[in-house]
């Protein structure tokens, strides 16, 4: 068991989520930065989809009743170094604290967080208030069961800070920018043709600041002067990575916990290989979009999947 000593800003349990249930209005969910979650799992010998703790901005403090092996990936904290499988003694407290670079940090525990599955997943469904153990973000006093380890992790190394890359985490760390300005790759569509002739080109030429209105559902971007001429569309199913543009010119990028349908036209869609960047972008960072083809997008994704032998 792991006891939550303090909950942090917005701390949730995430696994691969619930893809396939969108037709009932259920968001796929899953980590906002799937690459970091999978990398943290790999470091402790878990399946890449095992349930982890997603920390946002200020992480929780966790007390481990039994000895455990943990790894952190994603945003950097002062708790333990990212990229190391770190052994904790029974009774140890892991204080994640503030995420200093990036926005979200993933805590993987060897064996995975074993809260019950609901609709096939342990992840929190925020709007449905189910999953994630408690149907809400973690709070003081919550008890998190830990599952049985299925594979041997790379040998854990009791390392002093600053020397920690021998366990193999370094290869993941090299994959991960944590600060903006961000270049994020998109594919055109599905509603690019609902916009004015120059709108897409101007979209690609605009640096968009991230506003404070950003959460796991989506992030709002607003660039002064960016306006579009779009025709209205009928409510349509939407995907993670979709960039909706409102009549006022605000761009809303949909993240993991996105609503399943939307009424704003989608000018472009962020490729899944770059969803992790969106999960780490902070309010105030700027995002610049670059167009790629479907083939490039799928090559980029399979290169990332290759890190986990998939």
């Amino acid at each position, binding site marked *: 068991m792991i006891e939550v000593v303090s909950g942090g800003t917005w701390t949730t349990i995430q696994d691969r989520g619930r*893809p*396939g*249930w*969108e*037709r*009932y*209005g*259920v968001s796929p969910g899953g980590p906002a930065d799937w690459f970091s979650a999978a990398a943290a799992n790999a470091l402790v010998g878990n399946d890449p989809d095992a349930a982890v703790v997603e920390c946002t901005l200020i992480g929780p403090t966790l007390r481990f009743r039994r000895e455990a092996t943990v790894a952190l990936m994603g945003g950097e904290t002062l708790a333990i170094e990212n990229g190391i499988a770190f052994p904790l003694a029974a009774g140890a407290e892991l204080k994640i604290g503030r995420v200093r670079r990036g926005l979200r940090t993933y805590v993987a525990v060897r064996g995975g967080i074993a809260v019950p599955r*609901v*609709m096939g997943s342990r992840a929190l*469904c925020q*709007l*449905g*208030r*189910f*999953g994630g153990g408690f149907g809400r973000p973690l709070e003081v006093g919550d008890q998190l069961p830990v599952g049985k380890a299925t594979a041997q992790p790379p040998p854990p190394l009791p390392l002093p800070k600053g020397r920690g890359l021998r366990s193999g985490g370094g290869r993941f760390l090299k994959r991960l920018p944590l600060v903006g300005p961000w270049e994020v790759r998109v*594919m055109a*569509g*599905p509603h690019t043709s609902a916009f004015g002739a120059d709108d897409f080109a101007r979209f690609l030429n605009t640096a968009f600041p991230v506003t404070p209105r950003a959460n796991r559902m989506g992030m709002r971007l607003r660039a002064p002067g960016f306006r579009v001429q779009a025709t209205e*569309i*009928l*409510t*349509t*199913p*939407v*995907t*993670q*990575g*979709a960039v909706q543009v409102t009549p006022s010119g605000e761009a809303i990028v949909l993240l993991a916990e996105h*609503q*399943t*349908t*939307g009424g704003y036209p*989608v000018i472009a*869609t*962020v*490729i*899944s*290989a770059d969803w992790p960047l969106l999960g780490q972008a902070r309010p105030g960072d700027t995002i610049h979009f670059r167009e790629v083809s*479907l*083939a490039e*997008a*799928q090559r980029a*994704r*399979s290169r990332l*999947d290759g890190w986990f032998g*998939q």
Partner: protein
Amino acid sequence: MRRIVAAGDRALLIVFGDTMSPETLADVLTFEATLRRVKPRGLIGTVPAYASLLCTYDPGITEGASFQRQLQTLPVPPRRRLRRAVHEVPVRYDGPDLERVAQHARLSVADAVSLHAGTEYLVYAIGFAPGFSYCGVLPEILATPRLPSPRTRVEPGSVGIAERQTGIYAVASPGGWNIIGRTDTVLFDPRRRPPARFQPGDRLRFVPA
């Protein structure tokens, strides 16, 4: 005539038209039923809404281009009839926006209620949030714009109006629709299969309770 466009590297969107009509919805649902029967390799899920169908796929199993070819060449039977059965949804017409909707329509509250309850609706989509049921078409006279700024919390079972649509909130969520009443019918339960009470293509009638 349907159009298939990429929605990123893990989904295709099939667009069947640009209007809210029972015929277009029937096209969407006929295609979806065929797809779910044929189960092309790599298909993860389908999401119908109004005039379009999203098909998510796993590019680790099927390449986008070949998945798109499979959808293009899918042998689709003639348009299927929508279901005939009508679900009755008991509603207490006491919502915070009912009076404003009636004023907007220049009707008495009683007339607005009987017009809303006197119409049979089609479920065009389950979306936005778990179980939220988008229904149409609302009689034109009742059409009311969304609230200028959405409420931070709308209770489960709330029945709302937005433009020519009426809908039911299944779970508590933020929302900008005009709330005219509330039902006790449970519209979403993650333990039930299917988890949502209604499906696109279902017919609904609201009954004043």
